[in-house]
């Protein structure tokens, strides 16, 4: 079949945006779109409309127990299966990035990744869209996780899941030049707590997230690697 004209593509655009165009018609339309930015824009705009239509579908309460079943499903496999699952996951870039926390958190029993260097080895072409990860550690052990999104707006998310102390902790972001910016305070109960919020972080200058107690003593720190070390990134690939 000859390549579609713009008029023919316009006629197919609604069905293409709704993802209901049959195979051969879809292929013809996509071929046209490859070389026609104007039609690409039109289909993109219609796709937004299609997405918003689905958003109008009413919510519904799932059956009792649904939440618990889903949470169980999001946990790692049984220990005997872990030996083959970890290398399999390590071979899959997206799965390794998304599931690494559960996998390795299970291995150290505290819900936190135990060894990011061996896990998050993937790289991305879109640095500005990556969440940066570093373990929160004391001098002896890992007690939590720190995630930083250096986008616009930038934010930080911290979780503590180790120890027994109950306290109010203060978080500050420390830059490579040594300057520190307080970003928030949150309670820790029996070693557990989490907090997230806006934080002025820049991928090129971020060095450490530091948690301190009310007296200024360091509770835990998360050391972020420099840009030249991609190992601590959790990528966000284009869909």
């Amino acid at each position, binding site marked *: 079949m000859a390549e579609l004209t713009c008029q023919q593509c316009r006629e197919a655009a*609604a069905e293409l945006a709704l993802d209901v165009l049959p195979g051969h018609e879809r292929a013809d339309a996509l071929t046209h779109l490859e070389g026609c930015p104007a039609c690409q824009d039109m289909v993109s705009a219609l796709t937004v409309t299609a997405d918003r239509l689905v958003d109008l579908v009413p919510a519904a309460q799932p059956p009792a127990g*649904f939440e618990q079943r889903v949470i169980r499903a999001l946990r790692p496999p049984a220990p005997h299966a872990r030996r083959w699952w970890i290398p399999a996951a390590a071979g899959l870039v997206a799965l390794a990035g*998304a599931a690494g926390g559960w996998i390795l958190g299970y291995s150290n029993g505290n819900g936190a*990744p135990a060894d990011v260097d061996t896990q998050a080895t993937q790289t991305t072409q879109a640095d500005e869209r990556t969440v940066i990860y570093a373990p929160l550690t004391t001098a002896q052990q890992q007690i939590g996780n720190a995630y930083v999104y250096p986008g616009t707006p930038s934010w930080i998310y911290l979780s503590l899941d180790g120890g027994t102390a109950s306290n109010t902790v203060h978080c500050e972001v420390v830059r490579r030049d040594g300057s520190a910016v307080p970003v928030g305070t949150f309670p820790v109960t029996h070693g557990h707590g989490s*907090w997230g*919020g806006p934080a002025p972080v820049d991928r090129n200058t971020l060095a450490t997230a530091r948690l301190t107690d009310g007296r200024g003593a360091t509770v835990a720190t998360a050391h972020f690697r420099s840009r030249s070390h991609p190992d601590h990134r959790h990528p966000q690939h284009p869909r």
Partner: protein
Amino acid sequence: MGSMPVRGARVGRMSDDMLLAGLGAGDAQAAVAFVRRFQPMVFGVALAVVSDRGLAEDIAQQAFERAWRHAGLYDPRRGSVRTWLTRIVHNLAVDAARVRRPAPIDPEDLLPLIAAMTDSPERRALASETSTQLRTALATLPAEQARAVVMAAVHGLTAREIADAEHVPVGTAKSRIRAAMTKLHAALPVPRADYG
């Protein structure tokens, strides 16, 4: 990005983006909060498409598992977390419906869904301006166009399947879909490409 959380907020009050980051990274509290926040939407979309509560439950669970595994694929520049998750569950549900659909959809069976999508006071109270405008535009479409676009957008029916259900020529079904989408798109307060 979604709205930013209040400083000191608990996990349940964090932004959608943060919860997704926590879910993907393996944070148990974030996972619970994420599921709790989105389960009515996810289950609602699945149920609307497959019309079977058991199957909808399975699909909704698959959607959360997929979101967990692929949280790293989320790109905030391409839409909200809610839209991303809606696409996941909708695609799963449409695929399931295509496999098991026993008979063409009766257009009359769409009326309750269209009514819920166009006139739901409690949802209107919480809805964005965009949703309200789209809801109004859908309500003012000719009935045959509203059915056509809902069959395509929600149930994933092709023009031929819609034509079979409505007992009209395929060209007529295509025209109805196109006309409906043109009107709905024109109703949205966003920069629009010229098409028609």
